[in-house]
């Protein structure tokens, strides 16, 4: 089963399904000719075939993982890049706010106002250290 592809597995599951329905139809068409034991045995057999077909479908889904591994990795890395770009763009707002803070600080320095300088530095520090929106 190591080299089985999901497509082949799906085909196998189809085969199991049609085999099981053939047994079901045979059972009902020959109901009166079958002994109780034969009927039970066929019923069990058809149940097992159905289970097998279902299991193959689930197994086929896990095989998809190997087939898309490369695409998954690629899309995941592109998504990370997109998020990084968004972060870069949102940090422009932070740069603007920081620039505004520097302007206020500059004016305060020009006015030689120690109180305003202290407040401006504090605000500027808070803006710079604050999280990127």
């Amino acid at each position, binding site marked *: 089963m190591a080299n089985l592809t999901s497509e082949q597995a799906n085909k196998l*599951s189809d085969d199991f399904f049609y085999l099981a329905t053939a047994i079901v139809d045979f059972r009902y068409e020959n109901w009166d000719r079958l002994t109780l034991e034969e009927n039970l045995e066929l019923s069990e057999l058809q149940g097992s075939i*159905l289970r097998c077909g279902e299991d193959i479908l689930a197994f086929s889904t*896990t095989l998809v993982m190997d087939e898309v591994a490369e695409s998954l990795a*690629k899309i995941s890395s592109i998504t990370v890049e997109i998020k990084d770009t968004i972060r870069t763009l949102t940090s422009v707002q932070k740069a603007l706010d920081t620039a*505004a803070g520097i302007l206020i600080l500059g004016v305060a320095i020009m006015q030689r106002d120690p109180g305003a300088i202290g407040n401006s530095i504090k605000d500027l520090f808070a803006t710079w250290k604050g999280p990127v929106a």
Partner: protein
Amino acid sequence: MKKKSFIVIWLMVPFCIFSCVNLKSVSNFSATSTASISNFENLDYTFSDHCKDRCEDEAVRKFELSRALECSCDLYSKADSVTRVLYQTINGYFVGLGNLAQNELTNYSANAAVNAMTASEFGPLKIDENLVGAYSAISNTLLRATTDFYRKRKIAAYIGEANGPIQVLLDKFQIIILSNLKGELRFKRERLYVYYMDMKMNRTLLSDYEKGKATRDYYQALDDIQLKEKQMDVFAQGLQEIGRGHQALYENRDKLSVKNLALTMLDYSAQVEVLISEFNQLNH
């Protein structure tokens, strides 16, 4: 001073034109795609659900009673994990693309700087309000022009890189839903048929009422399965349309702001929206 402001505003016009990058088509299409892909959560049927249903059906058929139903569903849980990884990866990509394309992202505001310039506490330093307004408009427009151009270039590059792998993932996701998950329901249907047919052939049911009740129950159960199958069909059709829409974006990635593309994308978005609405109707 007013004349100066007027000249400044006139100088701004070309930047305005350049800044009008229309990424709305990408943004709208991504939002519709995300809404459609998210309906995966509303399918309300997983491989593990199927395994548990089977376990219950068999216990009912054999009239087996135990204190707790024990089912071995490891394989089915693995199938669910794979499906979930595909779902999250595809959804994550469209959410990211949508976020990058939305205009709000570059609605930068120079208000902080404007407020700083007009603040009255700056005493003797007075800046003319018209000039401040012009500064604000120019800085916002210039920022938008550069960042929108950057965004457009980035989005075009991402769409170019992502198209191949996203088509593979969308294709496989469709196969899993249509062939595998819906395929499991086909087995469930067959098991149901056998359960009621055995009842009939064994003449287990005696009264007309019991027979009528069993027949009604059978068709009701069949209807429930068919509804799930229909939901899966509609969901998978949505994935197919998303794939086509992304292909159109890929083929036109170098002219993302062209009006024709906006109209084409509107068409794909509308088709996906119809499928979302159809899915929602089935779900109620």
